[in-house]
């Protein structure tokens, strides 16, 4: 669902949220496998994934804010050049 969302939407923020969806699906899968194989390592890995996702959201949103401030748009179709 997150993959469809990343390809569908044009607004950069919503694309970001769909990436978060994908990360969540991976988390759920890891927790299920942790329960299946009686392994606590997978749950610790999920913890690290959550931490990294939080850091990535912070930095990504900061970048997005600066892009919006400089170009006035948050549309990924129009931001398709490396230098504007």
């Amino acid at each position, binding site marked *: 669902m997150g993959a469809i969302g990343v390809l569908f939407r044009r607004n950069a923020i919503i694309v970001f949220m769909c990436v978060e969806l994908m990360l969540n699906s991976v988390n759920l899968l890891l927790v299920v496998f942790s329960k299946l194989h009686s392994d606590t390592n997978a749950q610790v890995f999920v913890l690290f994934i959550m931490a990294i*996702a939080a850091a990535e959201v912070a930095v990504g949103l900061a970048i997005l804010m600066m892009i919006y401030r400089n170009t006035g748009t948050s549309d990924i179709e129009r931001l398709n050049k490396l230098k504007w």
Partner: protein
Amino acid sequence: MGTASDPDLDLGDVLSDAIFNKFPLLCNRATKPMITQILFYFLTTLAILSAFTTVFLKNPVYNVLSLIVNFFCIAGHYLLLNAQFLAAVHIIVYSGAIMVLFLYVIMMLNLNYETEVHKSVFVKVAAVVSGGLLLLTLVGIFKEAEISATLLSDFTLGASDLGTVENIGKVLFGEFLLPFEVSSILFLAAMVGAVMIGKREIK
């Protein structure tokens, strides 16, 4: 909930116990495992629905709110799988911190209604086709995966105290100590980076 002191009690059982005690007229003893199943299916459909609305709604605030619903559903799934610590951390970190960040940014950028020109039909169809192929691949994988006979016969589903704070803490500070410390450096870098990027220049 006393699960740390009573390692045989699974949180899925605890949840279904709570529901069973609240509606004693609706269910009898025999339907207790069914309550877990009903809860699971309810959470699943709600999660999938909220994922749909996250992607396909126009107003960005609705997207964020449905993503929050999605996070709560997945935290409910974690609780059913007896991953208590992860459920709590999930709610705190994701729907407590990340979604608040998203809301701040959306309000700052003042996105009211999506005034975007839609992507061309070709791209849309390609997106749905690729997403559908991904789904097909995953379903095919999980159907063909041979769960070995030994796993199915004694399907004990792991120890019941697998997700408690105590056990995760033991593994986290025992085997995963180095990634834990390195992640603190990662947070430092992310914080410094975010502040540096977002700094408004004083002219």
